[in-house]
């Protein structure tokens, strides 16, 4: 199935773009996508223990399963304000 991945901050820099279109198997969780991206771009490995996830602009847990057409965002530690 197809999902969209929105990239910000160090994720955007690592891929030199702000969005990826990924083909992933049924049952794929947010954490699996993080692992896949960190395999492709090892600089992202440092965020693995602390990254958070949003699906369709809502925070979700790492073990949340993705659905066809979902928009996933990987959220490294935030620092607004």
């Amino acid at each position, binding site marked *: 199935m197809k999902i969209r991945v929105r990239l910000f901050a160090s994720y*955007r820099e690592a891929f030199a773009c702000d969005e990826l279109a990924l083909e992933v198997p049924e049952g794929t969780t947010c954490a699996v996508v993080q692992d896949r991206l960190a395999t492709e771009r090892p600089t992202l490995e440092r965020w693995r223990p*602390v990254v958070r996830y949003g699906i369709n602009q*809502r925070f979700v847990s790492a073990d949340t399963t993705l659905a066809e057409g979902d928009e996933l965002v990987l959220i*490294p530690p935030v620092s*607004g304000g």
Partner: protein
Amino acid sequence: MQVLGNCVEDFAFSRAPLAVEPVLARIADPRQGAAVAMVGTVRNQTKGRAVLFLDYEAYEAMALRVFAEIAARMRERWPTTTGIAIHHRLGRLAVGETSVVVAVGNPHRGEAFAACEFAIDTLKAEAPIWKKEFWADGTSDWVAPGVAL
């Protein structure tokens, strides 16, 4: 800007410099006895390292939802709140520039101070906004509060 219950709410991102007065004007209300504005500014150093400038980015659509959720929690906890505004700057900011203005109106100052502190603390912890620090020694990195990297 929208009015929820008896409370005006106004959330925005800006690539242009922020000023406090226009944000306070957005929540002006005759029931208000106090308006507290928290103004975040770019500090010249982090842990002794000289900072040249910061670069802010946000997932704006999701962050605006987070702002609305923060406001909903404020209205629940401080029901007399008359106005809540959060304006956040994006892009490159020099030392001394304003990065965020959080303004809260209430008939009484105690509630306004408490609600404003809650708003900025929660924004910093939850809103999908990131800043990269550029230091005087030519290096830079993303700010990750509380994370040992």
